[in-house]
């Protein structure tokens, strides 16, 4: 095995979006890191907080309005106006959840628990919490702490930071 490059030992992933497709990449990256023995921190900020708000985390959805990459089930590009039709977001969300289950990608709550159990840490952004009038009690029980940006950088020290 030739491995001249220095291996990644730690990743800190910022999740800033609250749609299903905005949240999953961060979760997959964090879980994948732990699977490789890489230390992983997740930091949820702005609308990304929805993924760790206990009452909202099971109800994340796909954005169909203004999503230029959206396609119909048979592969054709979806006209953007179609995304605004009532029920479209729910349909797209249902489709994506179904496809992900096939690939063994767990729902958000189960996925976060998996990351937590594997030794990954989950943090909430203090500023975003204040902005959305959220309290620690509103968060999922697995959240380790509420951090300021400065504290986040301390946790991220020595590793790489990914913004999603």
């Amino acid at each position: 095995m030739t491995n001249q490059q220095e291996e990644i030992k730690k990743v800190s992933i910022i999740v800033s979006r609250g749609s299903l497709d905005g949240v999953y990449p961060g979760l997959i990256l964090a879980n994948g890191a732990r699977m490789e023995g890489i230390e992983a921190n997740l930091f949820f900020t702005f609308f990304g907080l929805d993924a760790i708000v206990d009452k909202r985390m099971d109800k994340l959805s796909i954005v169909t309005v203004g999503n230029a990459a959206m396609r119909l089930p048979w592969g054709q590009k979806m006209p953007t106006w179609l995304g605004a039709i009532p029920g479209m977001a729910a349909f797209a969300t249902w489709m994506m959840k179904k496809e992900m289950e096939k690939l063994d990608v767990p729902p958000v709550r189960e996925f976060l628990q998996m990351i937590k159990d594997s030794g990954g840490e989950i943090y909430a952004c203090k500023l975003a919490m204040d902005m959305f009038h959220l309290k620690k009690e509103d968060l999922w029980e697995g959240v380790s702490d509420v951090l300021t940006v400065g504290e986040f950088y301390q946790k991220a020290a020595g590793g790489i930071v990914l913004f999603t």
Partner: protein
Amino acid sequence: MPVKEILGKMIEFDDDGHLKNLNDWNEEIAKELAKEEGIAELTDRHWLVINYMRQEYQKVGDAPSIRKLTKESGVDTKELYQLFPKGPAKKAAKIAGLPKPKGCI
């Protein structure tokens, strides 16, 4: 292709450091592979994971996802990471004599 001598036998490995031939594997070899991964002794719980992975590989042609593994083997995520601390999917597959898992989950 790297070749290493284990227990007096010349064994071929792939570029990821996993066994090249599934048939080279046996429990004694597994114990030696585990030592190389820093696991001094394979307990019953390790064997549960290893045997489940081999069984799944023979059925499906790839190592199971961690989610499937923890749901079906009876070893939960926390324990799995304790058993194979530096990355369970890859390490357990290596010790089980399987190629590097292809999945992302």
